[in-house]
């Protein structure tokens, strides 16, 4: 049996970051399948910006089943186009979707798109393995846990949930040999991406991570993380590692051990994403010493009322301190804000601007609120005073307003984004001049 896994492109985004790096999730599924003797190909359309047209046909000779990543909501139009193009060529080709968007929208997708056959719900590695057995006739589809599909009567059937992988170390290393690693390196598309943990204990109302991966954080062992870094360094000569975990510093003690081992064993620069309440001066200093060159914080708002409403469980002061400490240590700090969160008004926008001009992060990401399927916000926007204007997923890129708050129209939100960005750029320029 041969399975082709596809990472789609964004539908409409014509320029900017085409690829966010190697699809490590698909490569992990591929590794699980390969270990059981299944042939696998990975096609990363995002890397080359390959888009499938509405009436295009797509042929994958020798492939027995196709799995498409449908994690990113804004990429869903391409997922549909690819699925349709595959069925135009071979109506019997099983088309399987997986990822966040497909998981949380499985009923709607199966009802509305007859060229999608099966959806893998939540984590996909071992579910995909069982699915290949079912597709080979070795077991019944109804006996595969963790999937949704249409039965012969066209009714959507959801099987019992599959267990999450408790010990991440049982997962094989991502099958990077199936990916064009040289192209990620050449295009500087995060070739050294690694995921060392899954899950998030927080329940921020705008994020679907904990709903997808669970509230309990599961970790790869330090030995396994070092093995993966070594593989990237030795096989691919990669000198920059990016840890793609949601909260890389979630476990302080594990982190400290890991940073010591990185410092001892490698000469690399690395970056990660974490929370402002999960760093302190001592930890940041150890991170810096081991090669940490960049940190991403999801600050989201400089208004405590908004942070509390969103169940972010962090304070404005923690944010201020974390950014200051990180900058003082010479670590590049990237901070994101979300404009249009529940309770957003002209005053809270002013708070954001003041905070940004005071802290001047090295990079600022201004996102407009997107009510992703699977989030608490998407389920009940009225409760939070949010009006959803659009469910055309192509617009769910954070750049264009798709919501309004009680006090701010989409025009107010868009204007705020432009003006904060402009003020930040001016302030950063002045700051840089003063720090030459």
């Amino acid at each position, binding site marked *: 049996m041969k399975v082709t896994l596809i990472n789609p492109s964004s539908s409409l*985004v*014509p320029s900017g970051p085409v690829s966010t790096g190697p699809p490590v999730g698909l490569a992990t599924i591929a590794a699980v399948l390969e270990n059981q003797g299944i042939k696998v190909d990975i096609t990363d359309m995002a890397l080359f910006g390959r888009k499938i047209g509405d009436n295009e046909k797509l042929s994958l000779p020798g492939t027995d089943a196709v799995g498409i990543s449908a994690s990113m909501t804004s990429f869903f139009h391409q997922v549909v186009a690819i699925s349709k193009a595959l069925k135009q060529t071979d109506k019997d080709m099983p088309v399987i979707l997986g990822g966040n968007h497909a998981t949380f929208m499985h009923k709607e997708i199966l009802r509305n798109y007859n060229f999608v056959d099966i959806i893998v719900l939540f984590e996909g590695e071992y579910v995909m393995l069982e699915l290949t057995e079912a597709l080979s006739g070795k077991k019944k589809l109804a006996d595969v846990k963790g999937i949704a599909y249409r039965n012969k009567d066209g009714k959507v059937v959801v099987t019992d949930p599959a267990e999450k992988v408790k010990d991440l170390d049982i997962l094989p290393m991502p099958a990077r040999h199936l990916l064009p690693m040289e192209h990620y390196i050449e295009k500087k598309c995060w070739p050294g991406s690694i995921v060392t943990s899954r899950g998030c204990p927080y329940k921020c109302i705008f994020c679907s991570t904990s709903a997808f991966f669970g509230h309990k954080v599961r970790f790869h062992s330090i030995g396994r993380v070092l093995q993966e870094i070594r593989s990237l360094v030795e096989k691919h000569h990669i000198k920059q590692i990016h840890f793609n975990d949601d909260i890389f510093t979630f476990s302080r003690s594990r982190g400290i051990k890991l940073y010591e081992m990185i410092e001892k064993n490698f000469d690399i620069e690395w970056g990660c994403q974490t929370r402002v309440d999960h760093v302190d001066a001592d930890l940041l200093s150890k991170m810096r010493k081991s090669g940490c060159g960049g940190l991403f914080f999801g600050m989201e708002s400089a208004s405590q009322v908004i942070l509390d409403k969103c169940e972010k469980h962090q304070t404005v002061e923690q944010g201020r301190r974390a950014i200051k400490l990180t900058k003082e240590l010479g670590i590049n700090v990237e901070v994101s804000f979300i404009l249009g969160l529940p309770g957003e008004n002209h005053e809270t926008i002013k708070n954001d601007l003041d905070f940004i001009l005071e802290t001047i992060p090295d990079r600022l990401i201004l996102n407009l609120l997107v009510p992703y399927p699977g989030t608490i916000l998407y389920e009940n926007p009225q409760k939070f005073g949010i009006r959803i204007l659009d469910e055309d997923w192509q*617009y769910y890129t954070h*750049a264009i307003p798709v919501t309004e708050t009680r006090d701010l129209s989409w025009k107010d939100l*868009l204007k705020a984004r432009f003006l904060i960005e402009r003020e930040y750029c001016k302030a950063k320029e002045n700051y840089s001049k003063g720090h030459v």
Partner: protein
Amino acid sequence: MSKPISREDSVNKRPLRLYKRNWIDVNEEVAVTSLSGETFWLNETAAFIWKLCDGKHSIKDIVDSLIEGYDVDRSTAIDDVFEIIWSLEERKLIGLQ
């Protein structure tokens, strides 16, 4: 006046903004975002042209409107309109119908 062939071919085309809710007036300028989040600040002339990219006005109509609104000669107006239209099209902010 000699005009490049591509201009002649395009003069009756009607430019159309491709996305909704991606631009706004900010004082005398217009700010536009692409879907990937790049911001473009349009000056007064570019903003005037941008607002006429509604799929109803042809490039010729836009040139005429610019001459009428800004008291510029035809040659300058044509150059300005094509430069701005092509720049917006290149950035995938408008399409030509």
